[in-house]
């Protein structure tokens, strides 16, 4: 299971869960408004408190979902990070696929046919 062969897909398995623990733990904390506020006030300090490694810190800095997944992030916890910036799932889908949001939405509409 740790060598996924579904294109464009990373299964969140034991390898990812080990790699991403600190990053996901930080994102899990964003369930609470007070923690989201604390992150916004002092991003460096907040990331340091959760012990993010350099790859995770850079992916957070870049707000880049594919980098966050590569650093062990899980989609469900990352969604809470995206929530801080008011991004919805179509913003996130557009970013990952290199499309504009309108192009990504058009792709979804096309699946109805």
């Amino acid at each position, binding site marked *: *299971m740790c060598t996924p062969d*579904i*294109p*464009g*897909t*990373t*299964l*969140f*398995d*034991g390898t990812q*869960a080990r790699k991403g*623990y600190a990053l*996901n*733990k930080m*994102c*899990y904390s*964003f*369930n609470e*408004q007070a923690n*989201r506020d604390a992150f916004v006030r002092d991003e460096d300090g907040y990331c340091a408190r959760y012990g993010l490694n350099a790859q995770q810190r850079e992916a957070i800095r870049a707000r880049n*979902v*594919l980098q966050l*997944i590569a650093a062990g992030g*899980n*989609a*469900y*916890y*990352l*969604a*809470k*990070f995206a*929530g*801080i910036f008011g991004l*919805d*799932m*179509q913003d*996130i*889908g557009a970013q*990952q*696929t*290199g499309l504009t949001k309108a192009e*990504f939405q058009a*792709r*979804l*509409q096309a*699946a*109805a046919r």
Partner: protein
Amino acid sequence: MAQLIGGITTSHVPAIGRAIAKNLQDDPYWKPFFDGFAPVHRWLAQARPDVLVVFYNDHGLNFFLDKMPTFAIGAAPVYTTGDEGWGIPALPSFDGDLDLSWHLIDALVADGFDLTTCQEMRVDHAVSLPMALLWPDQNWPVKIVPVCINTVQFPLPSAQRCYALGEAIGRAIGRWDSDRRVAVLGTGGLSHQLDGTRAGFINKDFDLQFMESIIHDPTWATQFSIKQLVEKAGTQGVELLMWLATRGALGALVRCVHRNYHLPISNTASGLMLLEPSA
């Protein structure tokens, strides 16, 4: 004995919560989705369930990776919700049915399902939004027993195992010494993928085949491995496991009272089915 009166399966995407918060039910984008629930409202008014067993997957509100149960069951007097990171209004909490919770725990462990039991448990949009779709006034007339199936961290329980869990719960409900009217609710799916460069993946043909199988050939999807289901339905489309558990609870034969399929809502193909056990 308690009576199992029906089962409902529906999608649960967070965007539904935003649409409800902004009263977009009649917006052209959302109307085909929300309108699908009108026959379910009529059925609920007539069938009057007292308690719902809710199969759902937590998305990181109650469970984190520090402790990740494969199957967990609520045994709490009350289940609270949260904003889950998105700043949308939290929905009202749910009363638990402790008698049914503990009856199910006793029956399921005896039946070989080694559950995690939770006397404190928060439930996320996968419980609260389907409930708000069933009862838009959010004045819940039922108690609930949430049953959480892990779809966060692989390995996930197999489709076959989730179906068997549902069967065991259906049997246990039938042996519950109570006059309560019980329904089952399964939430999630249908095809969608949020993560990776495959984000936006939707598979209408598979979804329609899956919904058809739920009626006439309910174990059809249990032939597939989890990885095959991800391939066919997307990384989050694998939430159809909740539909299989729901279907398993209803017994060999069902009557389909209503169904709706509409896409997209957010990044997801939405499905809705209302089933009654058929003797």
